């Protein structure tokens, strides 16, 4: 899938893992592909991995685009899968 959904890091775990949240959905993901992630950062999540950090503004803009396009549900599947 070529959609990645922005989500906020709400907990940093051991072994390059973290818990991210979008709305009321949380997911345990890997931070293996991204350096220097801090609590509260927004990351793009794809198949269980954070791909990039994004600014809160970019995250909001992308979420708005996904909502307008009707693909936010796809993104939520990505988070909850």
């Amino acid at each position: 899938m070529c959609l990645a959904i922005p989500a906020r890091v709400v907990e940093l775990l051991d072994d390059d893992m973290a818990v991210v949240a979008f709305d009321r959905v949380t997911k345990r993901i890997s931070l293996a592909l991204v350096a220097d992630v801090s609590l509260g950062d927004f990351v793009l999540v794809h198949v269980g991995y954070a791909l990039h950090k994004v600014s809160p503004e970019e995250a909001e803009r992308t979420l708005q685009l996904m909502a307008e396009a009707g693909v936010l549900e796809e993104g939520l599947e990505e988070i909850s899968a």
Partner: protein
Amino acid sequence: MSVDGRVSIDLVCDGGRVMEAIVTPPRPVALGPIVRARPVTEVISAIGSLFSVCSIAQSAASVEAAEAALEIGTDRRTKQARRLLVLTETLREHLLRIGLDTASLAGEPADGKTLRRSMRLPQRLKQALFPGGNAFVPGVCVGIPGADAAETAAEASHLTQSVVYEGEKPLGEMDRDAFAQWAMERGTIAARLIAPVLARGWAMIGHPETTNGGNEHLPKETSADTSCLARQAGAPLVRAFLSENGGAGLAARLAARVVEASTLPAQIAGGLAALRDVAEGSEVPTREVFRDENGGRSATAFAEAARGRLEHRIVLNDDRIADYAITAPTSIHFAESGIAASSLSALAASRREDLAVQADLLVRAIDPCVGYDIRLR
């Protein structure tokens, strides 16, 4: 316009043999409401944000279609620079896929440090070629590449040697025995992925002609494959794993990936050097533009992403978007009767646990960045 969502796969099994692979393709989603009547530059930017996994390939196809429809000549050097960015993104996807699959098969953590360095390659090159600017604005021109670009190309080469292959003889020119020998030496991450596949006798799994799986009825014409297998099918090593009619199993797909990855750093470095020789201001002919009776202009452009060919078709009316369509390879490869369905239906293993591992490897070998769920029934 459609996007690639999550693919759902049901494997109907009899013991360890797949009798039928039921692939539910990505759900098409209309994006018309967000692009219609918007300015072209805004839509290109939105596409890059939405399709962030392969945003460079998506943006490159988008801007090239837009420049054609706007009848803006594309600067020759800029077109070449964008192509190099797409190649770098493709290399990144291959390195990630190889790194993650090797770790998954071995049941060990991935080499995070190497993967993180791989992740940065496309953005580093983009910054080096278009400092402070956007590579995907219609009419933009790239400058002469400096030291930053050369350093990124060197980093790409170093990472590829570490992850994929380092040797005098090109990987693509090896025969099967030499390839197996190279894999068994386990000198790179890719070799440690290939070695267990060959050792377990899994080279031909997923080859549609090796079993009498239940999907024999699938029409061949729907099996269009634009993945790296299609791009690298001429390499002797890849050809050695193909059947006479071009049928491919797991080893052919993995070989195509490592062969392509091993050649990309030289293409990137050579392309950067060639940029210096391109005359400033020279333009490549734009793609063909079609006009309708209402003054609308449409054009189509392509980009070869890691997973296959992306096609963007743009329709403009008064320089604003009237319609936009993307044809993505995932939708084709994972169509109900596409190559994934025919390959998965050919799986057979002595143990059901192996079947699940084989299916995972095969899906990711067909498409390095698809999100999917597999159920064994």
